[in-house]
């Protein structure tokens, strides 16, 4: 330690190049670009593998056709798209009240201990494999609906059971994102209202909910996108019958269910059937992408409310 005589300090060393480090950073950067390559890959394969399809099927027929019947080379996407939307809407009807109600309870009423117990359980529900939900729909929900006389007892597949289980799947998504939005509302706003003699209900509905509205909307939009892309539960519960209808008691086939049904068989590469699943995959990709962009825009707005 006491060797600190330093009569003449050493000169400042010239900048050193550290090629090994530059190399490491380059490698790390290359890994980061893979995420871009994945997107490029998705867009490329959806367009490239489905390109033949767009040559042989007219766009107008595709987007306005109300029948999907590949055996006769009839490719109208409307029954598939409407089925995806129908199930997403049914899911939202189930999940929005339950999810937002749970979020209000957790952020405004529950104590810390309840939250600590309940949130991991909700996470378990969020992480539930969709094949399990499909089994549940088929084994329990549909029989219950038949028992209640909503679904004819001789009919197994229906949009309603699929919508209900998909709703269950997105409840945790809505609940946790909405709760985050509620909790982001400054305590001072709540206290101000309590100071004026407001009750909890008034604070929750008149102060917290409006202030967090864009966050809640974003959570619903994200949940819708998740519901539209959901596959296994709808494949199992809603059936394999393309059906252009808004009646939830009827069987329907979503875009995702068609992709699964075609994949299970042996559709050879280059065949029209093989190309068709990439074509409807592209439709699905674009629809979810648009919904996500809308949700991101909402989230951005919600983030800039308080500073």
């Amino acid at each position, binding site marked *: 330690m006491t060797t600190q005589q330093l009569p003449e300090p050493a000169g400042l060393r010239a900048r050193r190049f550290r090629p090994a480090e530059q190399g490491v*950073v380059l490698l790390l950067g290359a890994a980061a670009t893979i*995420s871009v390559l994945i997107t490029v890959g998705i867009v490329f394969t959806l367009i490239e593998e489905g390109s033949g399809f767009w040559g042989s099927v007219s766009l107008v027929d595709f987007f306005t056709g109300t029948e999907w019947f590949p055996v006769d080379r009839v490719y109208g996407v409307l029954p598939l798209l409407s089925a995806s939307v129908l199930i997403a809407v049914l899911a939202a009807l189930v999940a929005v009240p339950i999810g937002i109600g749970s979020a209000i309870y957790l952020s405004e009423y529950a104590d810390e201990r309840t939250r600590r117990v309940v949130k*991991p359980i909700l996470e378990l529900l969020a992480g*539930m494999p969709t*094949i399990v939900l499909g089994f549940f729909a088929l084994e*329990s929900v549909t029989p219950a609906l038949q028992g209640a006389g909503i679904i004819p007892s001789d009919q197994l597949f229906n949009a309603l059971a699929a919508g209900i289980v998909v709703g269950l799947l997105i409840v945790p998504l809505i609940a946790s994102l909405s709760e985050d939005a509620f909790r982001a509302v400054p305590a001072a706003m709540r206290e101000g209202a309590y100071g004026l003699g407001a009750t909890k*209900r008034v604070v929750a509905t008149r102060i917290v909910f409006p202030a967090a509205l864009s966050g809640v909307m974003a959570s619903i939009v994200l949940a819708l996108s998740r519901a539209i892309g959901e596959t*296994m539960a709808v494949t199992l519960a809603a059936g394999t019958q393309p059906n252009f209808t808004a009646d939830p008691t009827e069987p329907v086939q979503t875009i995702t269910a068609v992709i699964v049904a075609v*994949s299970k068989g042996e559709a050879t590469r280059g065949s029209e059937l093989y190309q068709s699943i990439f074509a409807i995959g592209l439709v699905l990709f674009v629809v979810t992408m648009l919904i996500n962009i809308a949700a*991101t825009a909402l989230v951005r707005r919600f983030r800039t409310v308080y500073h």
Partner: protein
Amino acid sequence: MATSTPTSADIPAARPLARKRARPGDQIFHAAVFSALLIALAALVWLLISVVAKGATALDWDFLSSQTSSRASRAGFLNALKGSVVLMIITIAVAVPLGFAAATYLEKFAPLSRDELRVITRRRRRALELRRAAGELTGPRLLASRLGIALSAVWARIGPPLNTFVEINLSNLAAVPSIIYGLLGLALFVQIMGISKSLLAGGLTLAILVLPIIIIASREAIRAVPRSIEQGAMALGASRWQAVRSHVLPAALPGMLTGTILAMSRAIGETAPLVVVGGVAFGTAVPSINPLNAANEDLFAMPLQIYTWVDQPQEDTWGPLAAAGIIVLLVTLVVMNLLAIWLRNRFTRRW
């Protein structure tokens, strides 16, 4: 909060404090939001009960140790179990190194801002002029240096927007439906690269699927390590990479592993992309657990086997098998989640 002000006794004819009274509106509202939560929890309980009720009888050692079969009475879960293990090994081997590397780059080395890059370019330009004036740089080396600086000026322009693009891209990728990844895997691995519809193709597809999730979770873990740790190391004369490797990454590792386990618990339950990539296997040969052999093994996985069974027309014979498979899958998921929670609680640091 002043309490020493005159008491109510000093004020003539003060109205007495109102007693508590029932507010039906509030009570109904409270009951409504509470029952919303109860409905969600009750649905989960109903699901678990119906699965256990159906599958408990079929779940025994024979079920776990026999290979799959076209006859329900003999069919077991062994193919699925081994297949899922191999899938997890491949997914981890591919996605974890890539994900951790990408997260490290994006959090610690990605171009931060245009201003910073401009300053760096300016510094390099000054250095060049100095060395040129001193006669150290001539001919091709001067040209090469000028080219380097021109590149860094270009990077200052395109780097930051590129980085923003990567960010947006990443959050969008995490929200792409999993079946789309299946289509990518089918086209890329099976058709273009010619890997057969095998465990390898399935594992690579799952790796692509979880990569964005791992990157996002790892970035959060890295961000949670205070900058002061990195600066402390750099103040001792460490380069940025030394500081990141020796201090930031070790401190972030538990969080990164937690995120990885949660991503894996997503991958292990995925059915749709595997169906699209591999179809439904008709063979019954039990795959070897050796991942190097994965390109030659039929695609088996727990959720895929469950799907095959649920999809059978004779529900009464196959249903219990599917339910037993679901119990095994759910137990695996709960164990993974508990592991993640334990890891998070055990190693999370309060800075």
